């Protein structure tokens, strides 16, 4: 496995983590020369042999140890980013230790069911993890040749996802939300209901066994205690906890820690997926907080800012997180990512959602209008998209008519909505009879297709059938996106309700 960078000394004395291996003694360097401290950064002088990206420990006189990472080195001057903040650090009271390796976390099967803090330390009061391996949290890029294309349908039991924005195993599909919208509930529902439906298997709806086949890795970055608590108690309630690994950095925790949280979570996920053959669902919330932490560091370094003060490398940085989703040839496991981010002012052109959308394979966008109208989950299907949908649906995966009906529902809903806008200005009377049908379609679509209960677990068949029932409102010749043979088989002109 290439997960471990070549230079990093491995801990091969398994079980005896409290002792540094001999090799590490040789590469560790202690210095006292802190010169400048600004924001989360400090400049250390007169060190030799330090390398880029190296992990550091800052030892305060109180006995406190803070961790940091080397951001830049010029001759013997080193710029260090301190994860837990620089409070209490002075120029002459601390000792800085360079550990001669990048940031690592210990991984093991026993991580399942456990909670960790933003530093990767056990945070649930339980015993420490006995590591099977220590892995560098930055990982290595996956060779595109080694990737297997994600094409296995995941049934989430949510119509707007299964029917129109289908999630497949190995995909990264973010939820774009806004302040006050129920993204946490949607994510928890996905985590609870997600299961793989292979062709020929029984397709059951209702309260199927939770999370069959999926382990959940949950990374919280700067979210509130309540939100984190919601997820934890939700996982406990449904018994998902024993298949979950949680990394929690709350709003009150040091922001710089957030830069490491998703990387630790994904390193754990990679271990579970590609070494222990599990299917892993990774939930990252909230990526906007992550990006703000990145901006903070960039500003402290006086870098030339890009849009809205975010650094120019935000795209590359986000990509190193999102691209860690996927499947590998010859491996059983997979990593499916659901990052959550809140769009400031519900603006999807804000750099964080914008760049995320360019990297991820689609997005689910929550709409405040739908939410205010009481539709739940308020997924606005028009700007939502799953790029990998087409390879995960159809004959042998879901049903032969899936692609066509999904296209048709989109087209009809879009037309219904624009007719509705017209009706607002000019009154219903100004609409053509066909347009009136579309308006009715779009209204019932919101109520019957989008709307569904928090515990309602629809099978994909049910979802498609609701779609056909709604399309029955429209005359057959309007349904141009559907192949004639499927119209023959499934189309039933409905009664107007």
């Amino acid at each position, binding site marked *: 496995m290439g997960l471990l960078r070549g230079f990093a000394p491995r801990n091969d004395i398994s079980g005896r983590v409290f002792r540094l291996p001999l090799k590490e003694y040789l590469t560790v360097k202690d210095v006292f020369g802190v010169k400048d401290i600004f924001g989360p950064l400090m400049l250390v002088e007169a060190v030799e042999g330090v390398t880029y990206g190296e992990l550091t420990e800052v030892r305060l006189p109180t006995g406190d140890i803070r961790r940091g990472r080397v951001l830049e080195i010029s001759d013997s001057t080193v710029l260090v980013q301190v994860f837990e903040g620089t409070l209490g650090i002075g120029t002459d009271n601390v000792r800085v230790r360079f550990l001669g390796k990048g940031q690592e976390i210990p991984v093991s099967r026993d991580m399942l069911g456990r909670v960790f803090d933003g530093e990767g330390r056990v945070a649930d009061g339980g015993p420490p993890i006995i590591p099977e391996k220590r892995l560098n949290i930055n990982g290595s890029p996956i060779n595109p040749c080694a990737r297997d*294309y994600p094409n296995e349908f995941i049934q989430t039991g949510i119509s707007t996802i299964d029917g129109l924005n289908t999630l497949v195993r190995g995909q990264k599909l973010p939820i774009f939300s806004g302040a006050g919208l129920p993204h946490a509930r949607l994510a928890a529902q996905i985590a609870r209901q997600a299961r793989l439906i292979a062709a020929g298997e029984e397709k059951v709806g209702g309260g199927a066994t939770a999370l069959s086949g999926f382990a959940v890795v949950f990374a919280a970055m700067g979210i509130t205690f309540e939100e984190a608590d919601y997820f934890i108690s939700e996982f406990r309630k449904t018994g998902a906890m024993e298949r979950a690994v949680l990394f929690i950095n709350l709003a009150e925790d040091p922001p710089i820690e957030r830069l490491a949280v998703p990387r630790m979570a994904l390193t754990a996920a990679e271990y579970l997926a590609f070494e222990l053959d599990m299917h892993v669902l990774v939930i990252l919330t909230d990526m906007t907080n992550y990006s703000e932490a990145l901006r903070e560091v960039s500003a402290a370094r006086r870098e030339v800012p890009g849009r809205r003060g975010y650094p120019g490398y935000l795209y590359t940085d986000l990509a190193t997180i999102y691209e860690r989703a996927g499947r590998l040839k010859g491996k059983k496991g997979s990593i499916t990512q659901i990052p959550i981010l809140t769009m400031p002012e519900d603006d999807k052109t804000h750099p964080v959602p914008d760049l995320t959308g360019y990297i991820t394979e689609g997005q689910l966008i929550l709409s405040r209008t739908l939410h205010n109208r009481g539709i739940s989950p308020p997924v606005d299907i028009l700007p939502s998209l799953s790029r990998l949908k087409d390879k995960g649906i159809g004959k042998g995966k879901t049903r032969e008519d899936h692609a066509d009906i999904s296209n048709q529902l989109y087209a009809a809903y879009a037309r219904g909505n624009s007719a509705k806008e017209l009706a607002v200005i*000019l009154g219903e009377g*100004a609409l053509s009879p066909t347009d009136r049908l579309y308006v009715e379609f779009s209204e019932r679509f919101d109520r019957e297709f989008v709307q569904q209960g928090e515990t309602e677990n629809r099978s994909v068949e049910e979802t498609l059938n609701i779609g056909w029932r709604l399309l029955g409102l429209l005359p057959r010749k309007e349904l141009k996106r559907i192949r004639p043979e499927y119209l023959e088989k499934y189309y039933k002109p409905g009664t107007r309700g």
Partner: protein
Amino acid sequence: MEGIITRVAGPLVVARGLKETKIFDMVKVGHLKLMGEVIEIRGENYSIQVYEETEGIGPGQPVYPSGEPLSVELGPGLIGAIFDGVQRPLDVIEARMGAYIVRGVEYPSLPRDKKWHFQPTAKKGDRVVPGDVLGVVRESPLVVQRIMVPLGIEGELTYIEEKEATLEEVIARINGRGVSQYAPTEITMLQRWPVRQARPPRQKLPPEDPLVTGQRILDTLFPVVKGGTACVPGPFGSGKTVIQQQLAKWADADIIIYVGCGERGNEMADVLLSFPELKDPKSGRPLMERTVLVANTSNMPVAAREASIFTGITIAEYYRDMGYHVALMADSTSRWAEAMREISGRLEEMPGEEGFPPYLGSRLATFYERSGSILCLGSQGRKGTLSVIGSVSPPGGDLSEPVTQATLRVVKVFWSLDDRLASQRHFPAVNWLTSYSLYQPAVDAYAGKRIAPGWKENRKETHRILQREAELEELVRLVGVEALSPEDRLIMEVARMIREDFLHQNAFHEVDTYTPLEKQYLLLEVILKFYTQAQEALKRGVELARIIDLPVREEIAKLRYIPLTQKEVFQRVIDKISEQL
């Protein structure tokens, strides 16, 4: 002379003591021997952009010069390969190193042990000049590689032999001006070329023939020519990548170079897994047999992303020089520009607009200008073309941003992708009102001769109807559809037919995904026939509602799914229109 690292900041490393190293030379950085390129020299200090992640590199570590600029290897074995941004063979790396890309690996770009059958076309005693074809190698069932005399070598062929040879074996000797003036120059099938330097043609020619893509809105309304340039800007989710992949699949070029620059790994996996299975419409052979992939996904090192575009276009030029029609797809040039911005920022250069370096425009121009229709180097008068199609990912879909604007100044075709169309799942989501093509006259002339004399008229009529629809829509928003005259409502109805039955195209439907020019013409002809006849019927006093409800309309809508082999169906529908009206 070996140098010593003094500074490391992300992908930028500064070293001292590299005396004889020139700017843009390749170097090996640190104990891990990471690949890098010198991009700035200030006195003692050499700035190096490193093509790999620099974790673990620090001051005091060595830098080894290579003495030559970043170059690609050219020769048999390119077709069907997948390279990273600096032409390392990703398939070989996967086979040897596993699923993750390990740093500091070094494998030759082209396989050294493989034997190729070299078939000479020149003979002993011939006088040859650079660019002349010495012989051919069948590289894949679809591609015959022509081995050319490298630049700077000319004279009399003293040895040439048909044989099974590896890339490094001598296949010919040329006596005359060459590497040394005393001994004949030995020619192998392997050549190298620095990526930042364009390969010279004998002469540039104006491009003429269309690059047929089988995509109706592109070929009919906004065509691109062989040797032309096009750009596809659009916000995320508007279908840039689908268009690029459709072009890579269906464009009637001999060779396709697909550069995935800073995009998703799964997309490259998709290309890698689907191209060997997709069949070229002309030959019925797998598309992979005419394709070269350059993949530098978004999580791979940013500096190699900057190089990937040049790596791709140099390989493209090589095939162009053999006299082929080559099409290069670059997805996405914005990521390339961002890579440039990142490096520029680390060099602490004075930023231009939005932090991009001031030379953004000129770099983009030098890239697009390497396209074109050319008379190839050499005495044999071959013609080759290189078409370049670049996608642009403007932040927030805002086309006024620097990369889009700099691109629009150099490209001739603008396919503007529209968020609104994409959300209605109207694909390809090319906006028919804002897009343009400056190659229309050339393609009109071509299609008027080869396809049908009415091509140009139909195209113009289509543009007119769509433009009129946009104006009428404004009106409808104010006064309602009932207030329009029956003639205008007919226009709106016909425009809807054009949009839904012609412009909309399903990339996942086996027939609909590719439409030959002739069928494009027929489809449009049928719709426009319907329009003229309906207009006449209106004049005769037939009610509009009756015209709209005619059963033949459902048949028109189905025509796009009928293959061209059943041409009689189109005629039957035309007859039915006359009958029913």
